[in-house]
């Protein structure tokens, strides 16, 4: 009987059921889609994990790995009777040139066993572990196809790399080790490692990564990795398995999917807000039924079952509709994301995502409905029979519902982003926005109510807003939040573009690194020929931290399955070597935020200046003593100040800086920048440096920024797509609420007609009422988006802010027009109805 009662009611109220389901389903489409993408990315990375690492295990470092460490690792393998194959790969940046054209490349020097897993798909052949490699024992290379256009080369062309003349043997169509193409600094070329020495590119202090790749006879990479962490104690040496490599690979798109998830969560929140309103309208009408059930002797538990069953059925329908919606939505997002991913993603909606959507919809519904059902049980049936008196949910219950929804949202955000910081910011923003929207909305309604409006059309519209405040506030917050999201992205993009492109003159033209001491003067000479100078020439001294306050600094290894993003990042940060510099004063992109300037410090232990966030992550305080190992020499430093760095300045910046003079004799290379070059001068200097000093790497900063912005454009496009989905959800909420409200108010409209009000006056009354909500929510949403984008840019990028009024205006006008059309259409449906029809309907 319970099942029959539950289903029959939903079927009888099919219009309400459909609106409720569509409302929530739209909210969940984005969520289902992004989770499916995340799943596809992770599945892809997992399936190709061995290809990505090209091994069962890799021991790597951004320096030369000590022979003894390699020996220790291999002794361990032998002691465990693990047979293995080993290949060594060295990666470094260098300049290649062809004629007058030059470009920075990432050179991968490989030996005959590479790749241990996976393949390199060339245009003419496919290279696997045992393939015969045409670049071996010859001055030939394989190159990424981007170089074709950049250097105007083809198969057979000759490139100059250091002292070597190398011929292009083939181009690489697909490199199994590269999964995503997020703004790579330089295209890759592959050479025979035997030619590495001949190129004379790697000299002391050059930036390079050395990796020993292993293929085992057994499938126990994880336990080997665990043991090797104790065998090799140097924290700068990284030990990876296919699993960690695939996680790293998937992480490259992690921030994008995190933000997509956050936007999707906002859509769920908006839909939840709408659904909560719709359910309250529905429930108000159900109170009589509840009272009837109770008087007929149905126990509370049975009534509860009816409600829960209905919610489950509705959740199932939401799940189904959002599944169908996602199927339609996935191709759009895939089209955008495909340009960021080199491998084809097989995006499908996994079963666990469907299950999760169902569980979430059900829990969300319970949160919305729970307090209401609980209250109903405490109210005597006599009161419930009086339908109009059934406004039994007090504001504190609504507040509790909001808190419960916020907690659910918090858990969900943490689950999706694994970032405590992101979760805190997101939930904090949502709570803050809710307070702001409800606060400002309340104030606005109060203000409108205090205006001396004479014409009844507007007066009654304001009165309706005042007396149906919860509806107005739900609509106000929903539309406002959607607008905020929609305008936030163009604002951020515009300001960043302005900062990098329009104000590009503040940025360096070239960034030069790996400059050996003896190359400084020739390099200055080349730059001087173009009437420019190298500025901010800063020494780099490679080192590793030995102790902090006399406590040995060790590698942080955590094998827990669930790690927050902050824990992962801190571990990565901790486990890598550090570049030191020495300066007597702060650069233009630095500001002292704590402590005293290095020049003012007169202590015995040399002074150290640390970047403030680096110090926070490492848990270092002012006055701490850090001990470094610089090429076998131990040097101590005392932290005397913290600096804030404007990273977007693209200037030589360092986490750790000694006072000038301390490291003068330490082995070092240098980095520097050149400002104020035009395109021709950039090309000319790059070409001259590539020929004369090929190991010096030169980055064309403007080109790099253009590449970065291209990628960021694609990313923001996908985020905008999700933001539009949120806006559509907002509109669905608007349509749902107006539709339910007008249905509720049809007699009111009819009464206006009967009392002699012309249709256009009633129309104006409705347009004014809902239009006011839309207009002010748009104004407020846009204003908040300005504020949020300003704060984001100031505190995340430390960047200047530029108002993008044009986009904000277009968005505002478009949303207002669409909303008014929706309101007009919905109102038209009821205005067209003749009074007599409504009269009959109500009898």
């Amino acid at each position, binding site marked *: 009987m319970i099942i029959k009662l539950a289903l029959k009611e939903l079927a009888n109220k099919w219009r309400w059921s459909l609106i409720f389901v569509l409302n929530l389903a739209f909210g969940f489409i984005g969520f289902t889609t992004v989770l499916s993408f995340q799943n596809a990315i992770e599945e892809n990375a997992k399936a190709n994990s061995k290809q990505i690492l090209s091994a069962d295990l890799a021991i790597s470092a951004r320096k030369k790995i000590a022979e003894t460490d390699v020996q220790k690792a291999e002794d361990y393998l032998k002691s465990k009777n693990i047979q293995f194959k080993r290949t060594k790969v060295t990666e470094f940046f260098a300049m290649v040139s062809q004629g007058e054209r030059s470009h920075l490349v990432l050179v991968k020097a490989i030996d005959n066993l590479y790749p241990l897993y996976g393949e390199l798909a060339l245009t003419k052949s496919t290279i696997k572990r045992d393939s015969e490699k045409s670049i071996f024992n010859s001055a030939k290379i394989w190159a990424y196809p981007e170089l074709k256009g950049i250097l105007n080369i083809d198969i057979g062309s000759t490139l100059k790399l250091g002292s070597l003349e190398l011929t292009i043997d083939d181009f690489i169509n697909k490199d199994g080790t590269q999964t995503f193409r997020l703004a790579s600094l330089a295209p890759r070329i592959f050479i025979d490692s035997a030619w590495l020495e001949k190129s004379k590119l790697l000299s002391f202090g050059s930036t390079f990564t050395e990796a020993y790749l292993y293929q085992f006879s057994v499938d126990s990479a994880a336990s080997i990795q665990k043991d090797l962490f104790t065998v090799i104690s140097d924290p700068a040496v990284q030990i990876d398995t296919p699993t960690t490599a695939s996680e790293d690979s998937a992480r490259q798109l992690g921030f994008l999917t995190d933000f997509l998830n956050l936007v999707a969560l906002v859509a769920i929140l908006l839909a939840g807000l709408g659904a909560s309103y719709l359910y309250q309208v529905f429930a108000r009408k159900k109170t009589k039924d509840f009272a009837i059930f109770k008087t007929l002797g149905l126990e509370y538990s049975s009534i509860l079952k009816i409600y829960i069953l209905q919610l489950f059925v509705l959740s199932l329908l939401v799940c189904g509709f959002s599944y169908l919606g996602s199927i339609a939505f996935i191709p759009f997002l895939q089209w955008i994301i495909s340009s960021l991913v080199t491998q084809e993603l097989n995006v499908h909606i996994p079963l666990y995502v469907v299950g999760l959507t169902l569980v979430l919809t059900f829990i969300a519904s319970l949160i919305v409905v729970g307090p209401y059902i609980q209250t109903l049980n405490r109210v005597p049936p006599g009161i419930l029979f009086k339908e109009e008196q059934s406004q039994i949910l007090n504001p504190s219950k609504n507040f509790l519902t909001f808190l419960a929804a916020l907690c659910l949202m918090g858990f969900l955000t943490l689950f999706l982003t694994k970032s405590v910081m992101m979760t805190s910011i997101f939930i904090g923003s949502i709570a803050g926005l809710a307070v702001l929207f409800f606060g400002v909305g309340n104030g606005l309604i109060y203000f409108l109510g205090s205006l001396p409006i004479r014409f009844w059309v507007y*007066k009654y519209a304001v*009165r309706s807003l005042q007396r149906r405040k919860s509806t107005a506030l739900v609509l106000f917050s929903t539309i406002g939040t959607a607008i905020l999201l929609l305008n936030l992205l163009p604002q951020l993009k515009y300001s960043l573009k302005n900062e990098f492109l329009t104000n590009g003159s503040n940025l360096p033209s070239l960034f030069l690194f790996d400059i050996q001491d003896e190359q400084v003067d020739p390099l200055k000479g080349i730059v001087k020929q173009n009437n420019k100078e190298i500025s901010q020439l800063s020494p780099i001294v490679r080192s590793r931290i030995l102790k902090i306050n006399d406590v040995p600094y060790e590698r942080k290894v955590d094998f827990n399955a669930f790690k927050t993003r902050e824990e992962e990042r801190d571990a990565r940060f901790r486990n890598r070597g550090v570049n030191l510099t020495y300066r007597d004063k702060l650069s233009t992109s630095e500001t002292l935020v704590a402590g005293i300037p290095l020049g003012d410090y007169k202590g015995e232990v040399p002074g150290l200046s640390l970047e403030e966030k680096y110090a926070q992550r490492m848990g270092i305080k002012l006055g701490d003593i850090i001990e470094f190992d610089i090429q076998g020499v131990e040097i101590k430093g005392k932290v005397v100040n913290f600096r804030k760095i404007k990273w977007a300045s693209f200037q030589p910046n360092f986490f750790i800086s000694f006072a000038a003079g301390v490291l003068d004799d330490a082995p070092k290379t240098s980095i520097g920048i050149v400002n104020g070059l035009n395109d021709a001068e950039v090309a000319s200097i790059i070409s001259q440096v590539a020929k004369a000093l090929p190991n010096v790497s030169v980055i064309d900063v403007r080109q790099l920024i253009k590449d970065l912005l291209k990628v960021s454009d694609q990313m923001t496009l996908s985020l905008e797509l999700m933001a539009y989905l949120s806006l559509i959800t907002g509109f669905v909420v608007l349509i749902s609420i107006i539709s339910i409200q007008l249905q509720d108010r049809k*007699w009111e409209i009819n009464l*206006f007609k009967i009392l*002699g009000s012309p249709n256009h006056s009633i129309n104006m009354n409705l347009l004014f009422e809902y239009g006011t909500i839309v207009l002010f929510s748009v104004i407020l949403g846009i204003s908040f988006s300005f504020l949020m984008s300003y704060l984001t840019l100031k505190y995340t990028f430390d960047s200047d802010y530029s108002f993008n009024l044009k986009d904000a205006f277009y968005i505002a006008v478009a949303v207002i027009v669409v909303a008014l059309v929706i309101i007009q259409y919905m109102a038209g449906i009821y205005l067209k109805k003749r009074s007599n029809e409504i*009269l009959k309907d109500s009898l």
Partner: protein
Amino acid sequence: MIQVENLKKSFKQNENDIDILKNLNLQVKKGEKVGILGQSGSGKSTFLSLMSGLDFPDSGDIRINGVSTTKLSEKEWTQFRAKNISIVFQQYHLVGHLTALENVMLPLEILGVKEKQAEEKALTLLGEVGLKDRAHHFPYQLSGGESQRVAMARALITTPNLLLADEPSGNLDQETGLKVMNLFFDITTKFNTTTLLVTHNEQLASRCDVVYRLSQGRFEKL
């Protein structure tokens, strides 16, 4: 004051035309109260809809104060109704988010009367129906009888030439219904309002000046 001539109205039901009203004729004098009796489905409400312009006849004419209403367009009817006709419904139909006072003021405000004047008149009428102290209560705070009294005050605020009442006590218990109808007759008499009262309660109808029974689509004078 009111002349109804050869009024016809039929509805389609399963391809068949059902004649609800057949050649109805009626004459009502100014200030006269006419009771119309009839069983459910006899066409009483349809007749009221035609009288109020909420529906249109197939043929025939309704003249109110010399105006042939069947020739009015829907827009003209709206204006005509606002100035000349008021309706009291069985279900009160008060606007839920407006107070009793605001509900009563509404018709005048739609006609463009100044707020102050409308409020004064509404308060007077609420006093007439004994609800001055409930002026600022919302409909959900009023009982059924009180709601119907507010609806009556609202119907009379424009001093209509014709008051149409559709089972005004139909939703009330006998005692409350009686009190409300006493008030209804007192107040319509006081304002000399021409009234058409549709009911199936013969006792109630008998309090009118003239009573007709609507049967088989025609009026039969009792």
